[in-house]
């Protein structure tokens, strides 16, 4: 196959046995980004949910800025975690329904690497926007100054782990017709470490303590998840498809 042919048809390249891993992953990332751009509500819904949940707390607890400021880091992190959880159900659902997930399983490239591309897009479309939006909601909760950058940073870093761990749950439940509640039962306990260190980083920033250790552990959790989760996701997808 000549190089011009190869450039012309990446879709063909993906199923060709000799196709490189990088090409396949790039194709998956490009495809999922295109799909996300065409279904914008999938991106906007978690953000709207995030804002709504944050709005509920002052109404439910108290509008006093002093009280809100003290619980703001936890509220923002918990709400972001729930928003990520909400978006997980759609991660493999459409691909499962139209059969393209089976094509992914049949691809000659290792499935664990290919799903990493899908999870990367999921993070780009939920984790990153949530992290960018969080400071705005922090303002509403009177989050003390000086912790906004850390809030975004910790959410951006932590949500990589959330996406990876959540994808295991999504892969396990994609074959079930009503997997939503089960998904949260599976994923939430596993997300607790990320929540602890994410909130810890923001609180340390508010108190003026060093935030480095918290971010370092968030990074370590992210590395651990990056190493191990793809294999669990791949194994779970095989169970969901073949079972």
């Amino acid at each position: 196959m000549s190089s011009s042919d190869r450039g012309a048809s990446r879709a063909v390249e993906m199923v060709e046995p000799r196709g490189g891993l990088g090409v396949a992953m790039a194709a998956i990332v490009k495809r999922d980004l295109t799909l996300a751009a065409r279904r914008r509500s999938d991106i906007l819904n978690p953000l709207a949910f995030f804002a709504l949940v944050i709005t509920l707390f002052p109404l439910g607890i108290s509008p006093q800025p002093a009280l809100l400021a003290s619980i703001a880091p936890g509220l923002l992190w918990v709400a972001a975690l729930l928003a990520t959880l909400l978006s997980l159900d759609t991660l493999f659902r459409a691909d499962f329904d139209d059969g393209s997930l089976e094509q992914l399983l049949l691809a000659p490239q290792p499935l664990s690497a290919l799903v990493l591309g899908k999870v990367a897009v999921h993070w780009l479309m939920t984790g990153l926007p949530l992290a960018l939006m969080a400071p705005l909601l922090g303002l509403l909760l009177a989050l003390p100054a000086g912790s906004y950058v850390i809030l975004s940073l910790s959410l951006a870093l932590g949500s990589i782990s959330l996406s990876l761990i959540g994808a295991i749950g999504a892969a396990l439940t994609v074959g079930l017709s009503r997997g939503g509640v089960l998904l949260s039962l599976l994923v939430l306990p596993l997300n607790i470490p990320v929540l602890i260190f994410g909130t810890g980083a923001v609180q340390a920033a508010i108190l003026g303590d060093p935030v480095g250790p918290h971010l370092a552990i968030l990074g370590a959790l992210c590395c651990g998840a990056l190493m191990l989760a793809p294999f669990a996701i791949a194994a779970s997808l095989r169970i969901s498809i073949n079972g």
Partner: protein
Amino acid sequence: MWAFIHKVGSPKWFYAISGRLLPWCWILAVGLILVGSLWGLAFAPADYQQGDSFRIIYVHVPAAFLAQSIFVSMAVAALVFMVWKIKVADMAAAVMAPLGAVMTFVALFTGSVWGMPTWGTWWIWDARLTSMLILLFLYLGVIALRGAFASRDSGSRAASVLAMVGVINIPVIKYSVDWWYTLHQKASFSITSRPSMPVEMWWPLLLMVVGFYAFFIAMTLMRTRSEILRREAGKHWVRELAAGGA
């Protein structure tokens, strides 16, 4: 070696061998738990600070030990099932999950009952209590996932993956909850720095711990045997067994 493993792994052989082991496990479990609880509840000296309320330790500590050990055994069984496709391992993992969840609940419940007279509260967000609660949720997740699939084989494999993911996460969760606890509040009391136990209190506790483990093994063997009969109901040897027993 391999022939031996496959022999033990075959449901029929496991059924026969476990049938011979089971009475001994039950004798050990019932004997140790009876002696341990009588000794602990009636003869061990009362604690000089807590009085008789400390005696709940003889249920609380063994249950807490088992709660964690059962999750690890379940994950090991899941690994054996996933790697070598030994069906008996999955049956064992399936029956271990509810047992582990019950033990976790017992540990939490007795801890809470113990907390009321000694700490003056049913619940505090102590690091150990919190990680135990998370462990209970992990058990519930494994049980729910297994039940959610229409095909038993998919349910088995999904639950196995989750058990292995969970067992990797348990140390991470435990460590981070410890960290969270030291960050947020300083303990005015601690379970770990209790004055070391006199020997007369320690012996019945040891008997109870060993007795609980024997109970767990006996219970797992017994329930695995019933699971074998249930899943292999169509097999020739099971039908023969049923015909002979009737």
